Each structure stands twice: as structure tokens, then as C-alpha cells.
């Protein structure tokens, strides 16, 4: 356990089951308690997206990921707090109030899946389902010292997940150990014909086979450190871990080679992300008009309903999204952001020796297996801070989001102020196993360092 239970109210849960049903399934998640971010449908508990707009929204079914986890033996404990509709990097903007950091009253858990991260960190659950659109799983995982996986886009069904930006939204997984996250991932990563962006069984197979071929034919791990994502000096803990990895090699006997690589388009990522995510948010949130469900203003007007039902940050992004989609701005903003997104994907493809089975690009023979970079540029966000600064927190996490790649944040020691910090392991599309293997090595090394 990372933290002692404190009586202090962190505002982790939005609702909790008094008597969680114990699953009779003997599946691989049997006996595990699950926290679910309050953007996934659950039969027993409301699904609010931490918004006034959906305070009384009671779906009839479980989201596909919730249903798969339960079928594999996990039991639902409750719903966790988050930024409204997943929009935020600090978990500052929730209709239920912010989620505080488990270590400090002055800090926030990070967002948008702050409740899920805190629930895992406090050992109030065995794993948590979260979402990650531009870093919403990895950032709070880093701040709270837990493992956070953003899988490849299209592997875990989004059916039953309240959308924020649908071309980027991914179901995330949080746990205290890489193995638990991997176990949950293996259960949830299923083709679903209810999700039009769910990737086919063939494509999944092609990606994992491509990875296996490379792994079996090579006697070394090739790890890239993208210089654009290292503009903040890596923490001492990360340096120690990486040094150890190079010195001793991997636990499976493979040598580890480190390369400094370049991802030139990464500097475009943050801007492109906010343009695209806001555009899609303005669209996917257009449905909240108070007509069919959700909050309706006293006057009944759509305008009042949206004015009163949405929080300030959501309204800010909707406005930004509406602007970038307007006829005059579309080419300059939206199309340019799409171009940047393609460039970022191409940049990543050039770095890996694993081929991208979605774009069918050739793998580069002297490429790397995974990339490693710090997850966050700073420690957990301050409760009192310049809100505008929040956007910059996503600067290191958005490239993998835009490129639809798997990325996992694993804790690597503490920063100078004593807060946990994470390092992200990123690999080619569909190569989650590569991510898990490298993350496990880092996890083991960190344990050894701690013991030493």
C-alpha cells in the first residue's frame, strides 16, 4: 500500500455500492474489486460524467468494458470522480468538486481520471477503469504513483462510455502493478460489433504476431528516448532505473540498448490535440439539450439548459470547438490539426522496428521496440494555481494519443518534493505486450532500488 488510509475526504467516489455483488465467475479477475470512472454505464449506479447535465442519468446496461470485467469475476465497488466529461488534467472541474491528492491537501489527484487513480493508490479497489483522451489516465497515475494504461485506440470497446472526443477516447486501466493492469487488459481487449471503431480480430492478431516475430528474432531490447519529450531532465530515479537496465540487461536475459531518437512533430501535438479534442467535444456534447434526458433548465430553453448544465471548462472547450469548426476557421485549425496528427503518426512509425498494421507502413529495421519518456512535466497540480497552466500538463501524453498508440505510465520513485512520478512506455499500435514487458522490468528495478 502506498498511502495510509486517511479520514480526510478526498472526494474519490461519486457513488458506491453498499453491498457489492460478489461475482461467481472463476475468470481471471475473480475476487478483484473494481472502481469505475463515472463516465461508464453501470446498471446499479448513475452515470453522471461528473456533470450537472447528467446527474440523474441511469443507464439500463453496463458499458461493454464493465460487463467484460464482471463476466471475468471482477466486482463493481462504485463510481469514481473525474473531470466533467473527462475534460481536464487536474481533476479540478467536477460537479462533485475536485479530487484531492492522497498525500496533500494542497494538491490535486490529477485528471481527468483522478478518482480512479486515488482509489487505486488508496487501495480502495484492486483496479480501476478510467479513460484517456489526451493523458487522462497516465497523468493522474503518474501523480498518484500507480500504473495507468492507455491502450491502443480501437482495442477496448467504447460502447457505454460517455464520449468526450471520439477519435481519441480510450478506455484506460489503473492498478498498483503492471501485472494486474495487463490481466485486466487481456480481458477487456475484445472485438465488439457494437463499437464501429473496434478493430478486427485479424488486425489484432497481425499486430501481436508482428511483435512476437521481432521479439523472438532479437537478442536485445531497443529503447528509444525521444529528445522532444525529454526537455525536462529525467528524474534521478528514472536515470538510476535506466542505468540499471543497461547494465544488467532485462530479466529475460536480453541486452538493453538505448537510443536517443527524435520525434520532430511532437511539438505540434499539444495544439493539435486541443483543436481536435475541442472540435469533437463541441460535437459529441451537442446532444445535451434537455429534450430527451438529462438536466433541463426551468425555462426549458436549450440555451439556458446548456448554460446552466455545463461547467466552465466544458463550456470553454465547446466554444473553442465551435470556433475551429466554423466555416472560416475550419481549414486553418481543424484541417491543419489533422495534418499534424498524420505527421505525428508517421514520425512514430519511422521510429519503431514494429510495423504499424493499421497504416501498413514498413517498419524500420534499425528502429526501437518502445519509447520511454517522463509522463508529466511536473508534480501533482496545486489546488490553487493558474488554471490556464493546466493545458500544458498534457504536453508529453498527447503525442501517443494522437497516434493511437499504447502508452503505460509506471511509477518511478518520487520527485524532489516527495510526490510520486511516472514514466511512460510507448510502443507501436497493438503491441501492448511490449509495453507490459518493459514496464515490468522498470517496476522490478524500482522495487530493487527501494529495497537497496
Amino acid at each position, binding site marked *: 500500500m502506498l498511502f495510509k488510509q486517511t479520514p480526510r475526504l478526498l472526494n474519490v467516489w461519486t457513488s458506491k455500492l453498499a453491498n457489492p455483488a460478489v461475482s461467481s465467475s472463476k475468470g481471471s479477475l475473480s475476487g478483484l474489486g473494481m472502481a469505475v470512472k463515472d463516465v461508464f454505464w453501470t446498471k446499479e449506479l448513475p452515470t453522471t460524467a461528473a456533470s450537472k447535465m447528467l446527474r440523474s442519468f441511469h443507464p439500463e446496461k453496463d458499458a461493454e468494458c464493465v460487463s467484460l470485467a464482471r463476466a471475468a469475476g471482477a466486482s463493481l465497488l462504485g463510481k469514481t470522480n473525474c473531470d466533467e466529461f473527462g475534460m481536464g488534467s487536474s481533476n479540478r472541474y467536477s460537479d462533485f468538486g475536485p479530487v484531492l491528492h492522497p498525500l496533500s491537501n494542497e494538491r490535486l489527484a490529477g485528471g481527468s481520471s483522478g478518482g480512479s487513480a486515488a482509489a487505486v493508490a488508496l487501495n480502495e479497489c484492486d483496479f480501476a477503469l478510467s479513460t484517456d483522451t489526451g493523458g487522462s489516465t497516465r497523468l493522474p497515475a503518474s501523480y498518484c504513483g500507480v500504473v495507468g494504461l492507455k491502450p491502443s485506440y480501437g482495442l477496448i470497446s467504447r460502447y457505454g462510455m460517455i464520449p468526450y472526443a*471520439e477519435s481519441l477516447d480510450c478506455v484506460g486501466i489503473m492498478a498498483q502493478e503492471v501485472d494486474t493492469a495487463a490481466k485486466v487488459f487481456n480481458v477487456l481487449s475484445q472485438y465488439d460489433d457494437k463499437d464501429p471503431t473496434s478493430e478486427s480480430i485479424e488486425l489484432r492478431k497481425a499486430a501481436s504476431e508482428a511483435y512476437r516475430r521481432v521479439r523472438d528474432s532479437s537478442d536485445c531490447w531497443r529503447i528509444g528516448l525521444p529528445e522532444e519529450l525529454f526537455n525536462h531532465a529525467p528524474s534521478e530515479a528514472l536515470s538510476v532505473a535506466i542505468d540499471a537496465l543497461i547494465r544488467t540487461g532485462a530479466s529475460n536475459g536480453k541486452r538493453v540498448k538505448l537510443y536517443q531518437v527524435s520525434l520532430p512533430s511532437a511539438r505540434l501535438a499539444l495544439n493539435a490535440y486541443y483543436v481536435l479534442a475541442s472540435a*469533437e467535444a463541441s460535437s459529441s456534447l451537442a446532444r445535451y439539450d434537455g*429534450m430527451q434526458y438529462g438536466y433541463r433548465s426551468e425555462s*426549458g430553453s436549450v440555451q439556458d439548459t446548456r448554460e446552466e448544465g455545463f461547467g466552465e471548462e466544458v463550456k470553454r472547450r465547446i466554444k473553442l470547438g465551435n470556433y475551429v469548426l466554423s466555416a472560416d476557421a475550419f481549414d486553418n485549425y481543424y484541417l491543419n490539426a489533422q495534418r499534424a496528427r498524420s505527421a505525428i503518426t508517421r514520425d512514430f512509425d519511422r521510429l519503431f522496428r514494429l510495423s504499424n498494421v493499421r497504416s501498413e507502413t514498413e517498419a524500420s529495421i534499425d528502429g526501437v521496440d518502445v519509447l520511454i519518456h517522463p509522463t508529466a512535466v511536473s508534480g501533482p497540480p496545486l489546488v490553487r494555481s493558474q488554471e490556464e497552466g493546466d493545458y500544458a500538463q498534457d504536453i508529453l501524453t498527447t503525442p501517443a494519443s494522437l497516434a493511437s498508440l499504447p502508452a503505460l505510465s509506471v511509477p518511478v520513485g518520487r520527485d524532489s518534493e516527495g510526490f510520486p512520478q511516472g514514466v511512460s512506455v510507448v510502443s507501436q499500435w497493438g503491441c501492448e505486450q511490449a509495453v507490459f514487458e518493459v514496464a515490468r522490468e522498470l517496476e522490478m528495478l524500482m522495487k530493487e532500488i527501494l529495497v537497496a
Partner: protein
Amino acid sequence: MHSTRILQNVPKKIKNSKGDSNAASWLSQYRLIIGLEIHAQLNASIKLFSKSKVSNDFSKPNSFVSAFDASVPGTLPILNKEPYWKAIKAAVALNCTVNPSSSFDRKHYFYYDLPQGYQITQQYNPLAHSGAVPFRANIDDTITRDFSVNVQRIQLEQDTGKAYFHSDTATPLVDLNRCGVALIEIVTRPDMQTPSEAVAFVKKLRSILRAIDVCNGNMEEGNLRADVNVNVEGTTDNVTNTVTRTPRVEIKNLNSLKSMTAAINYEYERHAKAIRDGQAHVIHQDTLGWDVQRSQTYKMRSKEDAVDYRYMPDPNLRSVGVTEHQVQEVRNKLETLPDAVRDRLMQEYGLNARDVNVLLMVNEDLSSVGGNSNSNSDSDIVQYFEELARLSQSPQLAVNWVIHELLGQLSQRDVAFSRHVVTVDRMHELLSLIQTNQVTSTAAKKVLGAMLDSDASATATLDQLDLRMLSQDALQDVVQQTVDQLQDESNKAQQGNTKVVRKLIGHAMKLASGKADGSRLEAMLKEKLGLL
């Protein structure tokens, strides 16, 4: 219901030529330019992206609504094959190039009947483009030139729900049964020059979509809706030959061909007057509506306050690919289109355009009422005619009896045509009796009437009604009786009084009680009187 439609539609002729021919002569020097945007609701059994079935107009409100249709967050669109392939079929039938890959976009606006806050449509990469629908001069009275209407694009999209406003409630009532039903929008080039041509295009489009079982095509029920783009061009200075063209206006949601014609004519005159009076600047690029009561257009919005729809590629939906091979397969399986039927009827059977038009129109009405043209060969009147024409060896006799006598008597009885009302064999037997002079045309109509009420053969009915044409001997008896009964008149006739001959013939016809051919009886009477 079936027959009322037939009663309405057979005699009905859209009075569109009136608008054209009555137009003041000054108007004719201004060129009218018309383009159309047609929304055709596909008659697929399932909505475009949800698992909801498609309701009919009489379904209970909100009884065909899935969570996706109501835009419940967390639901996702899954493209259904049935409406998709119906749209491809329409594209092929309209001679379009089908895009190897098309994609879906969101068109955003807020309205009560649009729960998602956007419509999924195809703005950037539509299903098909560059089609053409050809017209030949004189297919009916209203078309006076050979021309083609080019189809710019066909896009597949979602229909909206319906919002009803009642005077006693502030908020509208919303019915989502129609929400998410598949539509195709067919956008034409401005290739039509008269309201009649626009009407002809809509009718032809409708007959094609009905023939291939893609759209029921009933404008009144809203499953075919037309927006019209109109502007006018005219020479304003005959010396310098300066040509002025008014800005294009769009007239929205015309739900009948009559309204369409009236609205186009109204705008034609308004634009032409403006050019004539040097006031072309008063015409703006506006979106207009049509006020049926007052027979005039009204402004809905101007270009300046046009809605910015904030089009965006739908992040949930991938491009849909179709191979040339698949398109070819659709083409191979396509039903015979109305133009091909028209050609066959005119060339193989030598029918005139008018008779062919009646056959095609009735056929289309019947198949659209039935809903599915394939399963309705019972009501296929063209097929019925062709079988009858082949059996009787006389297409003209066959078409006359099918169109005028059979349909005429059926509509008097308020009964819809089906091949079961009088089988081809029974009808053929009746025509044979006429052809072999065993019954007069007049008597044959009575026989047909009786046949509609029974299953008896034509011959049996003929004998039962005692309407068989009289034999030579019987006719001689009739002539003899006439001369005997009207001795005075006979004598006068023999002396050269021609007037009295008519009376004698009338008397003879009465005695023959419809069972004699008038001219034959006249000849025999005259012979008897020694007048030949």
C-alpha cells in the same frame, strides 16, 4: 385505399403546362434556371445506424426509437447494410459513378427533432457523383426538347424526427420514429428550364426509385421531398447584349408537384420582373418557403444569417469501401427501369406515348401502394397487358380493353387492379369473341362487367346474358320483322325517302337488343328494301 389512389391518379394530370403557356409573352425572353435537391427516404426495413425498425406514418409516436436514435450518450452508430445497398442501387440506377470509398460527416444545428445536435451526412466524400437522367422530347405534352438532368452528387444521411407545435403548449411535441431513418439526397445540376421539366424529373426519379424498390416516393407522406434552386437570366441591354443573372434562391420543403410548379413560376416572374425593371439587385440569395394558402414564397433566411453547420468528419464512422465488382453486381441485378419498359412497349407493341404513359403511371401507383414492386407481380399491369397482347395478337385491342374498359370499370367499382380480378385467359377469351364477331363491343362491355362479379368464362357469361351476336338467319328474321311491323315506313323508304331509313334501322337494332353490329344490320335492311 388502393382504388382511391387509382381514381385520384389516373385522370389526374399535373396542370403544369398551364403555367408555361399562360405565361405572359414578355416572360418568355427570360431564361429560367432550375436545379433540384431531392431527399428520398429509403424504404429499408431498418434505420441507417441503429437497430430500430422503420415505422410507417400511422405508427404510435416514439414507438420505433432505440437508445441511439434518442442520442443516449455511450451509444454508437453501426452502419446497416440494407439501407447502404439501397442507396448504392439508386446511384447505379441514376447512372452515377459510385465512389470507391465514401465517408460520413456531421452537420450541426440545434432543433427539437434532432436529438444528437447533428445529422450524420456525407459532405466531403459522398456515396456517388456525376449521374445523368435523360429526357426525350414529346414523351408527353409538357416536354418539348431532348435534355439531360445531371446528378451532381448522391449522399446517404439520417432523417430527423418530427416536432409538432400546438397553440396551447409552449414546447413542441417530438416524435422520434423517423429519426435516423436512411435518406439519400440527390443534388442535380441546374439543367431544367421550365417547371414542367422539373416536375418531369421528379416524376421520373420517383418512378425509377419505385421500380428498383428503393423509395416509396409519396410526396404527401414526406418520403420524397424537394428543395428547388431557381434563378433567372435575361438580356438587359439589347445594344450591348448585356446579360443579367439574378442570385439563386432556394425554395425549401416543397411537398407536392403542384406547390413546386407554383413556387417556381412565382419566383420566375419575380426575378424576371426585377431584371426587366432594372431592379435585379432586389433579389437576394435567400432561402425561401412556400405559403400554400397565399400562393407566394416567403423569406426564411438570408445568406448573411445562413446557419454555419460546422461540418466535421464523424470520428465514430470509418470510410465505407465498395469495389467496382460489387457495383457491377448491383448493376447486373437491377430491375428493368421505366424507360426500358417504355421503349419495349412502344417498339414491340407499337403503342402510342399516351397509352404507354397511362400503363406506366398506373403500374407505378400500384407498385408504390403495395410497397414492394418485386412481390407484387399480381398488380403488374404492364406484364398483364403484355401477356394479353401476345395471346390476342392485337396489342392495340388489348391496350384499349385494359386501359379504358378494365380500369374504367374497376375504378367505378372502387376496386384496385390485380390480375386476379379477370385472369389474362378470361380477358383473352373475351377479346377473341370480339375478334371473331361473336359479340359486339357494346355487349362485350356488359359481359366484362358481369365477369368482374363471377368466375365464369367469357363465353359462359356471354350466353348467360344472352348477348351473343345474332346469326345470319336470326338477323334475317329481325329484318323481316322490322319490315312487317313498320310497313308504311318500309314503303316510303323503298320510294326513296332516306329519312325514314334511320327509323327502320333504329327499330331493327332495338329488336336485335344489342346483339347485332349496326352497320351490318343496316346493310341487310337496305338489301331487303332493295336500296343497294
